């Protein structure tokens, strides 16, 4: 394999503590190495440019059934953005829900190498893997959803922790899943009857368990299994005025809990798209930011991580396993609504949405996303996302970075809002003069996310031994003045090396790389009861047979990468 020496760039690496120093980065045989290990490298001149490890996205909806519903039911999303194939590139199109090819290319052009699919319905695991298989370049993994799964609800209700763990282990292996995702715990099951759980103490119909018990129980199971990633939560009551209290109550469930794993993960809980969970007030008329209360809590509790879910003020397509929320949303905006309830497991809804700069609430949401980041004390625990495509498309990350790195840029955006004064009044953003540094951005987009995923030994840093995933941006931190340059440079990586191979050169895709699909194989002691329960449920309640449920690695995955965990003690 080729050797590369990326010379003289301004390097930002929070893991190594390198903050903009000029350094050379060496890549050989797919890995980062000491430059002394190179014999005859190709030299990439990075003088005057920014060098970071490739980006690692902890939460995006990029593959699977609801994503494809989003594509298929929105032909209008493909207007004016279809690109012809060229060289190694396939045809590509789509704005808020790009085709798999465009997804791969756009992430790569932002210098990202790894993207996790945030919600995989287990029964549709095969579909999710088919899409990931066709997504070029990116290393990917998918989180199966557990928070409304009948096995989990029943075992937790009976306090059968060993059974929960054995079931999780079985489901991760069977679906080739990566982590435990929880979406509106209990509420999505209630949605099977058109109902919801709006607080973490609302009992789930029939199952007689509360969302709080589900989340706490799954956290315990996650730590007992010693999984690479923590539980990944989207709590109840998303998107409603006054919901910050539900969010804080959720956070508090995990107070004092300690992580248990060999992957360098430090949190017991990741809360996703916190922007949607940080609202004060009691109606859309008086909704206001509670970013301060949320971040006070996050800053003082280091056993949790979170991502932002920044609103980007675009027209987009919302999609979530929070079925009742999507119904609520369609009642609100009267746009088209797709929903799928999935037997024994989950549900999902899809509704288009326009975050208009002319709507006060949208402006407030936009501000809150940024505030969360600007109030964060530890950028290794607070990550940039847009909950793609829910709050905006992922290719706006560079724009979010611009807003976070430049007060001038966000004030300009604030001024352009129709209700700027009202937005200012309901939020803190205008009072925040912090401007994030590239070092902090590197923490929020690669070093921190890799660590939280338990993948710090592969990604997120330029430490020798890690995968040769390196992004070079045409951005000179010493001379760049104009904030627009941030967005431009980080949307068009000068280079992306992926697994030691040049995939992007001068903003153009030159290779489809050799993607990996990550999954977690957690071994537990044989559990005959769980085996029996699975067989029973498949016989009686599922509509596919047990033997037809498992995802065939050879057929459905590209370069499967199994991460083994032994939890048999």
């Amino acid at each position: 394999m080729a050797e590369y020496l990326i010379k003289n760039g301004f390097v930002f690496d929070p893991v190594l503590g390198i903050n903009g120093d000029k350094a050379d980065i060496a890549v050989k045989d797919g890995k980062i190495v000491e430059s002394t290990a190179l014999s005859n490298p190709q030299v990439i001149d990075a003088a005057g440019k920014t060098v970071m490890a490739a980006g690692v996205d902890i939460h995006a909806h990029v593959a699977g059934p609801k994503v494809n519903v989003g594509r298929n039911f929105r032909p209008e999303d493909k207007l004016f953005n279809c690109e012809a194939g060229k060289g190694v590139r396939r045809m590509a199109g789509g704005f808020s829900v790009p085709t798999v090819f465009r997804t791969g290319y756009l992430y790569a052009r932002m210098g990202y190498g790894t993207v996790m699919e945030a919600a995989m319905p287990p029964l549709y695991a095969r579909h999710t893997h088919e899409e990931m298989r066709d997504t070029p370049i990116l290393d990917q993994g998918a989180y199966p959803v557990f928070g409304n799964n009948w096995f989990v609800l029943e075992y937790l209700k009976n306090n059968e922790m060993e059974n929960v763990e054995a079931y999780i282990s079985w489901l991760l292996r069977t679906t080739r899943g990566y982590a435990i995702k929880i979406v509106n715990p209990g509420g999505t099951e209630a949605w099977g009857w058109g109902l919801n759980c709006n607080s973490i103490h609302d009992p789930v119909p029939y199952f007689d368990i509360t969302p709080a018990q589900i989340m706490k129980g799954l956290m315990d199971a996650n730590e007992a299994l010693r999984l690479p990633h923590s539980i990944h939560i989207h709590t109840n009551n998303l998107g409603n005025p006054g919901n910050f209290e539900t969010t804080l109550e959720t956070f508090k469930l995990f107070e004092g809990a300690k992580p248990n794993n060999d992957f360098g993960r430090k949190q017991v809980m990741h809360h996703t798209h916190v922007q949607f969970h940080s609202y004060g007030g009691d109606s859309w008329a008086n909704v206001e930011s509670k970013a301060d209360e949320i971040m006070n809590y996050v800053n003082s509790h280091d056993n949790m991580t979170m991502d932002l879910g920044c609103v980007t003020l675009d027209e987009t397509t919302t999609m979530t396993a929070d079925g009742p929320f999507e119904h609520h949303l369609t009642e609100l905006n009267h746009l088209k609504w797709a929903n799928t309830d999935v037997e024994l497991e989950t549900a999902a809804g899809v509704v288009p949405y326009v975050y208009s700069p002319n709507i006060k609430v949208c402006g407030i949401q936009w501000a809150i996303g940024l505030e969360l980041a600007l109030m964060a004390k530890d950028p290794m625990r607070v990550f940039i996302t847009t909950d793609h495509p829910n709050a905006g498309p992922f290719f706006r990350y560079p724009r979010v970075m611009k807003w976070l790195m430049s007060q001038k840029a966000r004030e300009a955006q604030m001024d352009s809002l129709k209700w700027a004064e009202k937005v200012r009044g309901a939020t803190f953003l205008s009072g925040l003069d912090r401007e994030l540094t590239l070092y902090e951005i590197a923490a929020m987009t690669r070093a921190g996310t890799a660590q939280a995923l338990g993948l710090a030994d592969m990604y997120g840093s330029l430490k020798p031994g890690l995968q040769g995933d390196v992004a070079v941006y045409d951005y000179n931190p010493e001379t760049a003045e104009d904030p627009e340059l941030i967005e431009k440079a980080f949307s068009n990586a000068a280079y992306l090396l992926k697994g030691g191979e040049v995939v992007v050169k001068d903003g153009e895709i030159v290779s489809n790389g050799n993607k990996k699909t990550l999954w977690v194989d957690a071994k537990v002691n044989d559990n005959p009861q769980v085996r029996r329960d699975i067989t029973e449920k498949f016989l009686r309640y599922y509509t596919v047979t047990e033997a037809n449920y498992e995802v065939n690695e050879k057929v459905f995955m590209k370069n499967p990468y199994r991460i083994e965990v032994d939890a048999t003690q």
Partner: protein
Amino acid sequence: MTKIVTDVVCPFCGTLCDDLEVKVSDDGTQILEVYNACVIGTEKFLHSQAKDRLKVPQMQDEEGNWKDVSIDDAVDYTAQMLCNAKKPLMYGWSSTNCEAQSTGNEIAEIVGAVVDNTATVCHGTTLIAVQDVGVPSCTLGEVKNRADRIVFWGCNPAHAHPRHMSRYSIFPRGFFTGKGHKARKMVVVDPRSTDTAKMADVHMQIEQGRDYELLSALRVAVRGAPLPETVAGIPRETIQDVAETLKSGRFVVIFFGMGVTQTLSKNHNIDMAISLTRDLNEYTKAAIMPMRGHYNVTGSGQVLGWQFGFPFCVDLSRGFARYNPGDSSSNDLLRRGEVDAVFVLGSDPGAHFPISSVKKIAQLPSVCVDPHHTPTSAVCKLHMPVAFVGVEEAGCAYRMDNVPIETRKVVEAPEGMVSDEEFLKMVLTRVKEIKGVA
């Protein structure tokens, strides 16, 4: 010794039953018996065993005489035809696996073809309606476990999806439906008295083509607003009763078929049916689901969706994906004379397209890939027989509720026969050579 292959997936209809058991001969070449499948499904398996099975590709000359050709010749003819055409149509894709669909799409991209599947004459109107109003739906297991109100509109599962009612919708006892069909109310809307209609609690024998009116009337009745004495031939009281039955259910499902997708008003009917489902969600839980016909027509829509963004009628001839049913749909293209070559795989337009379209196919360079002689193969210039996907070849297929299942290989294909995917891969390689792309 014989052996039994279990958990076999039936590659016939969109019900995609996956509990079949097939008895095969010891050497794995003969299917002896098929258990659990309905008659149509069983036939599909047994048919692969036909003694007069076609094994060699054949080409038709100007005079209509057929002669055997080699697979290499078939590959070359197909590749040349697709590369030489300005705007070839690549149609079908519903009776094959997603892997073949994906390979076909890649070829289409390189040669600038229009890719269309059988939805174009079936549930394409549904796909259009979904683009207008969305679709609240669910998996079939939700129906089995929760649904107590079932509507079959313009479809006849007793004949077209024979195991649908027993596996999912009417008879099974599920988690919250322990009484099975006794606790379910069944409504059928059909102008004919079908075998399905005969089983219903209520059969609304609608006047032909008046679905839009009746659906609207139901929406009105659900809201409790006044109705005329009869709508579409159905008395007001019946409509009001049905509306009440639906509202009082805990979980309503509307299944609908070609009797409503392809009658007057077309996609507008489905708009209305989906809107009715939406309305019902104000009162209870309700879902709606198309009764997809071919076992993997849904899969073609999915693969096209994640690769190009549209579920059917995808025109790649301009170098980017374009979608405009009525313009980029097979019959419109054929009848306007806008395509100059036709490739068919996994369906039989010769039997299902209007005669004016079939005549056009007969005049054009054309290839039919199909295990059987079909009306399509009869008019095409090249007939390429292949292995049976789902019998002699595994691969992914999507059920009518979009749930993907990996079909199983039960027996070996006759010696020397290739699968759809293998044939397409050979064509792809040849196309790349001709076009000089990497």
